[in-house]
């Protein structure tokens, strides 16, 4: 492993992380705009940049669209007063936002976001680390982020964050079970007997050249999606925050940049969650079911690679839109309803789904 290789990996990592951060900041803008459109409002429409804002038609249009809004939003997080209340446990209070953001950014490492055909005709994923246990790694790391929320709730040493932390931990642990069980049918289907076993996300993505998994495992997809909402703490499952009852939940005591880390962490989780759902269920970079880029004849070289990335990001953005769309459609569940849904409905349903697919896959593998 020579030094160039390591530097190249660093550069790739920097690019991917900055793209994710950019996506996060524009996801915040998209959230604000979509919220306001659904509610019959206008949304952020004032922020303008000196030069671009004064271009005749384009400038006012972009300003009205709020395109420059993420810049002051980000600056605000940096320059506001950073209050650390006297009653908190300082060490864990400062550590909590870091712990909640780092797992989200770490999981990016194993998520393939496109594919490229090499000169040798081999299809290679565009990914930072093509790990064979990709999916397992992803679940292991992303479940760590609950520690950030629990720590924030606990170290804040006041009642609302504490309640938020408790709720978040209960919820995330309960939904992780159903989430894990719901993807087992996919792994069974991808790992044909006689082949080398894999949990590689790229292999799972490439297995969807025909049917997308959302089409022939719809129940898995729905359970996974519901759990994804719960895991990312999005409405209707934002028990941890639930601003109408708990002020702001686990980050009540946080301000300025520390709050910004939580905020970005939430959106980073959304981005990664959407990526994973696209990879597992929505056929990743295949434009349509049964149609791959290679079949259309555009799959070769860098153009094919760019096209695959574009399709993947497009699907991911669609899913992000779905996240925001759901937010203004469904009211928040009550805490006991969340627990009931998780333990009494989703978990048994996912197990039944697993058993059903065990028989279906067994039948398909043996008789066909």
């Amino acid at each position, binding site marked *: 492993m020579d030094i160039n290789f390591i530097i190249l990996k660093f550069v790739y990592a920097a690019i991917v992380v900055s793209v994710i951060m950019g996506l996060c900041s524009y996801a915040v803008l998209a959230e604000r705009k*979509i919220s*306001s*459109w*659904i*509610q*019959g*409002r*206008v949304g952020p*429409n004032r922020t303008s940049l000196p030069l671009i804002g004064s271009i005749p038609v384009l400038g006012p249009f972009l300003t009205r669209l709020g395109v420059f809004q993420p810049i002051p939003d980000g600056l605000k997080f940096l320059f506001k007063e950073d209050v650390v209340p006297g009653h908190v446990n300082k060490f864990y209070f400062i550590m909590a936002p870091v712990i909640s953001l780092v797992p989200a950014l770490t999981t990016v490492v194993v998520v393939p976001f496109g594919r490229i055909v090499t000169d040798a005709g081999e299809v290679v994923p565009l990914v930072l680390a093509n790990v064979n246990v990709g999916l397992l790694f992803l679940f292991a790391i992303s479940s760590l982020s609950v520690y950030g929320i629990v720590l924030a709730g606990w170290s804040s040493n006041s009642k609302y964050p504490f309640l938020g932390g408790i709720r978040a931990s209960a919820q995330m642990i309960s939904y992780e079970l159903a989430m894990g069980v719901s993807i087992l049918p996919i792994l069974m289907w991808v790992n044909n007997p006689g082949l080398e076993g894999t949990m590689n996300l790229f292999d799972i993505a490439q297995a969807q050249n025909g049917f997308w998994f959302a089409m022939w495992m719809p129940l898995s997809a*729905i359970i996974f999606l519901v759990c994804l909402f719960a895991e990312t703490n999005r409405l209707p499952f934002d028990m941890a925050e639930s601003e109408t009852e708990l002020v702001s939940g686990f980050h009540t005591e946080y301000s300025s940049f520390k709050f910004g880390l939580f905020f970005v962490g939430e959106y980073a989780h959304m981005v990664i969650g959407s990526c994973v759902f696209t990879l597992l269920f929505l056929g990743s970079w295949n434009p349509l079911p049964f149609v791959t880029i290679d079949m259309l004849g555009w799959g070769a070289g860098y153009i094919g690679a760019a096209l695959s990335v574009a399709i993947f990001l497009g699907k991911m953005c669609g899913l992000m839109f779905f996240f925001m*769309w*759901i937010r*203004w*459609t*469904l009211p928040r569940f009550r805490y006991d309803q969340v627990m009931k849904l998780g333990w009494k409905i989703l978990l048994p349903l996912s197990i039944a789904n697993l058993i059903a697919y065990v028989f279906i896959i067994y039948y398909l593998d043996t008789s066909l």
Partner: protein
Amino acid sequence: MSIVIKRKPLNFLERIYLPEIARGLATTFRRLWGKPVTLEYPEQRPTIPEGYRGVPTLVKDPEGREKCVSCQLCEFVCPPKAIRIKPGAISEDSEFAHVEKGPQEFDIDMLRCIYCGLCQEVCPEEAIWLQNDYSLSGYSRSEMVNDKEKLYELGGTLPDLHFKWKKKQEAAAKGSGH
């Protein structure tokens, strides 16, 4: 008496929740393309209804006479004591010398004013009117006190139905009291 509202029992499709979520999503999706109802304030202003109580002002009648005769009823009735009047005499050589009195100073402290409209209601001369302006701002407390000049500038001229003092003058010229 208690009223029992009968709820229709949910059917199977409603109980599995997902079709209903889809219906809700359709509703919000339609709203997504709806026209915003926002009034973009500084550029667009609301239409002010008839009888709106905005900033209190002093008005002149169409002949250009200051209608206020500094009777100080408004000063007396003003609940937050926002009005301060210093009465004065109208000079002998004025066109309106027969009115005799007018305000020498007239201050309304807009930091105290509660826009109740009692001054307008109590005024026997219809000299003080609450008009349409509702958005006031200033950099200091003294800037927020409207003096006489400012009040007339805000008030302008309003039509007069009576020309009370003119009639009085004409009646006096004929020799009758009224």
